[in-house]
């Protein structure tokens, strides 16, 4: 019984179902002028099937996925590392904070023209954009998380014989996890949004590039398939980090 209860679909699915029904009805009854620009839900599903079957979607998706994984991993590892050092050592924070504060507000896509000139059009471009997109917010959240750990926990650990390194690894980082994961969770989704934008502008492969090709052929169904894939990936990445965060910080909330 408990098992059945666990798999019972929630009420949340109902609005989605109604939305899809309305979409299908509106498209089929030609309720919108210029009906050719508004494919039905069924058409989109069929196009998803064709794109998957002939591996076009898979190939482009894989290109985007690899870029996101490399750029996001590198950006977040670097952000975590620098963020921890900045949060822990006041002198480093004082030295780097003005620079970070200046660069942090620049939107990741604002770097695109500069990076196009520096790196040229190639695989390095979207990866660098994702790196920048991930690095600064994760650094900022990590440094804030480390700095805002209650100093009394540090004092307690000192009286219990802990060295600075012990305190950092066994007390401060675990207590800063909620903040650190907020950065990781938000930026994991953001990495997908950014890679699509970079691919649309400058790269011939990937989901973004596929969308641009579909646009030039006026294939709304393909564009919608790409948007759905993008939405699912943003959602999945954010949920994955939310899940890990929930597991690791269950006793801190």
């Amino acid at each position, binding site marked *: 019984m408990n098992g059945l209860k666990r798999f019972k679909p929630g009420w949340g699915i109902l609005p989605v179902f109604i939305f899809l029904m309305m979409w299908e009805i509106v498209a089929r009854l030609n309720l919108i002028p210029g009906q050719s620009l508004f494919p039905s839900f069924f058409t989109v599903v069929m196009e998803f099937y064709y794109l998957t079957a002939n591996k076009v979607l898979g190939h482009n998706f894989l290109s985007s996925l690899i870029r996101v994984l490399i750029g996001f991993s590198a950006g977040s590892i670097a952000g975590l590392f620098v963020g921890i050092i900045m949060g822990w050592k006041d002198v480093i924070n004082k030295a780097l904070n003005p620079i970070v504060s200046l660069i942090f507000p620049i939107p990741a896509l604002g770097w695109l023209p500069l990076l196009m000139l520096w790196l040229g059009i190639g695989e390095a471009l979207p990866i660098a954009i994702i790196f920048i997109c991930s690095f600064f917010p994760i650094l900022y959240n990590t440094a804030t998380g480390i700095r805002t750990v209650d100093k009394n926990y540090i*004092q*307690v650990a000192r009286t*219990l014989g802990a060295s600075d390194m012990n305190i950092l690894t066994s007390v401060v980082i675990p207590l800063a996890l909620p903040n650190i994961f907020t950065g990781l969770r938000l930026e994991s989704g953001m990495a997908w949004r950014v890679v699509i934008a970079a691919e649309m502008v400058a790269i011939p492969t990937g989901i973004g590039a596929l969308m641009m090709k579909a646009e030039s052929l006026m294939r709304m169904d393909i564009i919608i398939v790409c948007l759905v894939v993008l939405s699912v990936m943003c959602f999945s990445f954010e949920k994955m980090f939310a899940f890990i965060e929930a597991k690791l910080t269950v006793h801190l909330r």
Partner: protein
Amino acid sequence: MPFIRLKNISKYVCHNVNLEVFDKEFLVLLGSNAAGKSTLLNIIAGLITYEGSVLFDGIPVDQLLPSKRKIGYLFQNLYLFPHLNVTSNIAYSLKIQKWPQHDVNARVEELLRMMKIKHLASRYPMKLSGGEKQRVALARALALSPKILLLDEPLSSLDVQTSKYLRMELKQLHSRLGITTIYVTHNLTEAEEIADRIAVIESGHIEQVGKPEDVFFYPESKKVADFIGTPNILDCLYCNSLGKGVMEVGCGGLPIIIPDDGNKVKKIALLPRDIYVSESKPPGPDVNRFKGIITDIDVDDSMVRLNVEAGENHLLAEMPHHIYHDMDFVVGKDVFLILKLRSIKVYRDEERRWKNL
């Protein structure tokens, strides 16, 4: 030789503080808020820089890091690590010192048993009650068998019953382990119940150090007297056993009822804060309630003190400003006094010391 010695310590509000704590002694540092109590503990623990010198067993420790001072410190808000369960919290210092896992397990087991928290071993701090957290934090502080234990108002957040119970346990634990202990509090009852000696600190100065009865009955300065209150001491003219475990003690025309343990009482004492004053006759049985007349009113910044003539005695009662302003007390007015039974202290010839009832 004192086990802990503070020589000319200055930091924040504390100025040229000198204090000695003897080996295996339970010293209570008593003072109002911001008197410098916690600052002194942090100095002893080495958590803040300071001027002056701290000696443990005659050896200066000023250059030692907190981790090398071998002290156990129970902070006011305990600060159990929320991401570690009870076992890991207790084992924290042992793992830091790289004890073999087998020894860690054995020591944690011993502490869990000693603090009667074995059933909590796998719980996380979030799922513990106030009293349970207290025990876990104490076990964690004791894990490395420190020579010195510092307790910063550890029971202040607990309800009266739990606090009293834990206080008794703490005292027993101290007798058993013989750790030199400094206990910070602003609570007079706590201090009196638990201390071998009390050091009264006000505005960063140690005003008086002595046994609880010396501090309570013979305050050496006005600050101590103001903080504790000069007690009302009444000579007992007769003691009549009334049966059923109670006796009537006659003190200058006031028949005071107290528990009867078979010994005659020579004097009784009551702090001004333990005498309630009422404009109208209080409800309830007519025991330890007396009619009196106000002879003097002294209003100062912290308290209002009423001098009330009751029988042949002049009793001093005190109350906070807000209560005084709610009442209509004037010199010459008839009032009713209620003596708080639990706060009465008695002096018997046989014991030659003040004792709580």
